[in-house]
């Protein structure tokens, strides 16, 4: 063999993958927002886990794009006028991926596990006299107090989601991760091909019982046009961007804002807002430790907090991606309120903030700011906060660390000098902030509240008022009261409302805007 022949042969061999790339319109290659490191959206609340789980497990009800719960696994329900007895009937023909029939035993075991972990579930559990099976397809909640939000609780998209699993799996301790991934959703999880940190594979479930209606978010017919959905998890955003440009992946859930201009220039790629409900940035105070155990210190920060500064640091100059929002709730939703949010509007008052701190004797007080530098959003927020705190006269101890450390340290109630903290940053998905039910960060129940342990009777009263609200008007009134009380108490500092992009190859159609990737209805040519 001549050297030239050998070179040609090698060239042909190396070109083989390019030929293979032309195939596979029944395979979708998707880059998720993060590594899929576990598969239990009841025991954990990570969004990426929830997104994967929504393909594998189905729910009794599911919200549509207006966040209205619609029947999904259920055929329908009956409720007594006092909202105390709820009776549900499952659709016929529902089967799990292992071939087992879905029965009310599975439903009850799944709901019992979910109720331990979910805020709304706990609310139901607190009012529960019995959750009982009438027959294989009918089950009933008997409550000792009215609960009008039952359908929303069963169909909500926020983790922990009320996913229905076979009874044997649902019996797992709610604080332990499940080890078997059998659902009744449109895709089955191929655990044998799962390489955590690299790829996760989902295969079409041929026996999935598709509802006749059009699919919309978590409701209606979840029609899958792919035999296989591959989640590819590059650990580097630049690699993900290059892979999308090269056609090695089809859809990227959350491209970095910095890379979006590059992607927009590529005529084979479409770019659009991913989640219409966006996110709310959060500056979280520790209410137990000085100086922020004094409400005047928290109010001083709010007087100087510029949402514009935060948002430009988080998502850049593109005004399509962010807006100021003087509210703890998601802008544009039915019961949105900005009552009491005046402190975030208008010119920032640094001198006023300094004066307030001086009155409180807190000028020059030390603030331990823990910042996860490995997460672009918290890094940007942390840097703006450090600057803000210095401007109003705090002595800032900027602790640059990673998210794993922040996650552990924020749980410590000790003084900052003994491993505790004063401020950390995060953000809340707008879908979690549409009302108080899924909104753990809003709770102001003191010791039992989310990290920072805010305490406010007025906030807690407002939340209870919302749960008992019989209609939208009453819900709006409750949320206005909560918003005002949350600003009075400064439960946390909302740093602005922002959205992220998603990007996909133009040969993909049916991509919708939602708080989670909706795979049903998506096609590839």
């Amino acid at each position: 063999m001549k050297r030239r022949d050998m070179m040609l042969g090698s060239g042909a061999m190396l070109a083989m993958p390019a030929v293979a790339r032309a195939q596979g319109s029944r395979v979708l290659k998707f880059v998720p927002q993060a590594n899929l490191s576990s598969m239990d959206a009841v025991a954990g609340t990570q969004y990426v886990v929830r997104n994967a789980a929504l393909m594998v497990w189905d729910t009794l009800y599911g919200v549509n794009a207006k966040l209205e719960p619609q029947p999904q696994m259920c055929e329908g329900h009956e409720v007594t006028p006092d909202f105390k007895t709820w009776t549900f009937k499952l659709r016929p023909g529902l089967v799990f991926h292992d071939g087992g029939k879905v029965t009310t035993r599975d439903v009850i075991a799944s709901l019992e596990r979910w109720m331990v972990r979910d805020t709304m579930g706990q609310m139901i559990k607190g009012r529960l006299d019995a959750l009982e099976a009438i027959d294989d397809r009918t089950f009933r909640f008997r409550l000792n107090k009215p609960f009008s939000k039952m359908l929303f609780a069963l169909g909500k998209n926020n983790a922990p989601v009320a996913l229905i699993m076979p009874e044997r799996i649902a019996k797992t301790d709610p604080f332990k991760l499940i080890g078997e991934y059998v659902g009744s959703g449109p895709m089955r999880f191929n655990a044998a091909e799962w390489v955590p940190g690299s790829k996760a594979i989902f295969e079409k479930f041929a026996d999935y019982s598709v509802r006749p209606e059009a699919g919309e978010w978590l409701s209606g017919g979840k029609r899958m046009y792919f035999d296989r959905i591959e989640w590819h998890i590059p650990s580097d955003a630049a690699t993900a961007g290059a892979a999308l440009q090269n056609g090695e992946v089809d859809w990227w859930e959350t491209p970095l804002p910095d890379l979006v201009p590059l992607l927009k220039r590529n005529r084979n790629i479409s770019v659009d807002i991913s989640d219409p409900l966006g996110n709310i940035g959060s500056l979280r105070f520790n209410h137990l430790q000085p100086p922020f155990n004094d409400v005047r210190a928290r109010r001083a920060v709010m007087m100087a907090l510029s949402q514009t500064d935060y948002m430009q640091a988080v998502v850049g100059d593109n005004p399509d991606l962010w807006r100021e929002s003087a509210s703890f709730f998601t802008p544009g939703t039915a019961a949105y309120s900005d009552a009491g949010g005046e402190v975030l509007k208008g010119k920032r008052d640094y001198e006023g903030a300094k004066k307030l701190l001086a009155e409180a004797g807190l000028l020059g007080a030390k603030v331990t700011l823990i910042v996860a530098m490995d997460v672009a959003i918290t890094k940007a927020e942390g840097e703006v906060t450090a600057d803000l705190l210095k401007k109003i006269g705090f002595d800032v101890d900027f602790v640059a660390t990673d998210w794993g450390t922040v996650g552990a340290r924020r749980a410590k109630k000790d003084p900052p000098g003994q491993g505790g903290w004063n401020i950390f940053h995060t953000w809340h998905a707008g879908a979690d902030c549409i009302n108080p039910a899924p909104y753990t960060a809003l709770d102001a129940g003191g010791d039992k509240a989310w990290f920072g342990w805010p305490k406010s009777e007025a906030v807690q009263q407002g939340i209870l008022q919302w749960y008992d609200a019989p209609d939208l008007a009453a819900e709006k009134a409750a949320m206005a009261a909560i918003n005002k009380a949350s600003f009075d108490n400064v439960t946390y500092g909302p740093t602005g409302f922002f959205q992220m992009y998603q990007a996909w190859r133009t040969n993909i159609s049916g991509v919708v805007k939602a708080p989670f990737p909706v795979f049903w209805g998506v096609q590839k040519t």
Partner: protein
Amino acid sequence: MFAYAVRRIIATIPVMGIVALFVFSLLYIAPGDPAAIIAGDQATPADVERIRASLGLDRPFLVRFLEWLWNVLNGDMGVSIFTNLPVRHMIAQRIEPTLSLMVLTLTFAISFAVPMGVVAAWKQGAWIDRLVMVVAVMGFSVPVFVVGYILAYTFALQLDWFPVQGYTPLSQGIGPWINNLALPAIALGSAFIALLARITRATMLEVLSQDYVRTAKAKGVDQKSILFVHGLKNAAVPIVTIIGLGFAGLIGGAVVTESVFAIPGVGRLVVDAILRRDYPVIQGVVLMFSFVYVIVNLCVDLLYTVFDPRIRY
């Protein structure tokens, strides 16, 4: 020599024990909490505490260490805190891409660097020597990830000769296998080529100035034999040592390279595990790497006897 090899292998046991204790202690005192990560951002502190207890992370250090050590001695490296998959299975899933990357990088680096070093020594002071030294300095100076991005941009995005990311197992054909690994191997090998070429040049210069080389030249031995038989064979011991030491460097570099090219190897596994505080996975991978490193050093020691028959164990 056989007895020596057996003694060395037995000696790895206490070394591994010390590594195990060191790694376990380091992770124990390191900040971070896998329970908080499993629970997710919306979980309450009470939820996190319950998960920590269910994982057994609230038990004393000694109890956890001894339990883990006992399991390892019984061939059980434990189960990932997050995936519930056995660590042994996770390493087995990832070992082929990493080994493939190492082998291809070493092959590529040795086959370029050694001839470069020999030629540079032979033509000392000439333009080719200077060129080799310039390439070597560049190889040292430019970080692996920068080389990786430049290669990916040029040969994958612009020319579309290679894929940007991923790995194809050898079982699916040598063509796709090389196709996926070519750019990562070049990126990872760039610094190693630089190091190896410089060491080869320096060692060859020393050897070529020896009396026996002058004698060989005087006897009319051809240049090729002088360089590769008389010269390179006698320069081999330091070169082999550097190859062995470089292996450790490659393990570190593989972590970066696997991230840049999204190769599902052991390097990425350990980085992900560290970020999530997946203790059993970190312990398992570090233990495996240290074992491999000890074995590579043993192989290097044994190779000395091949290149220099005067060395005896």
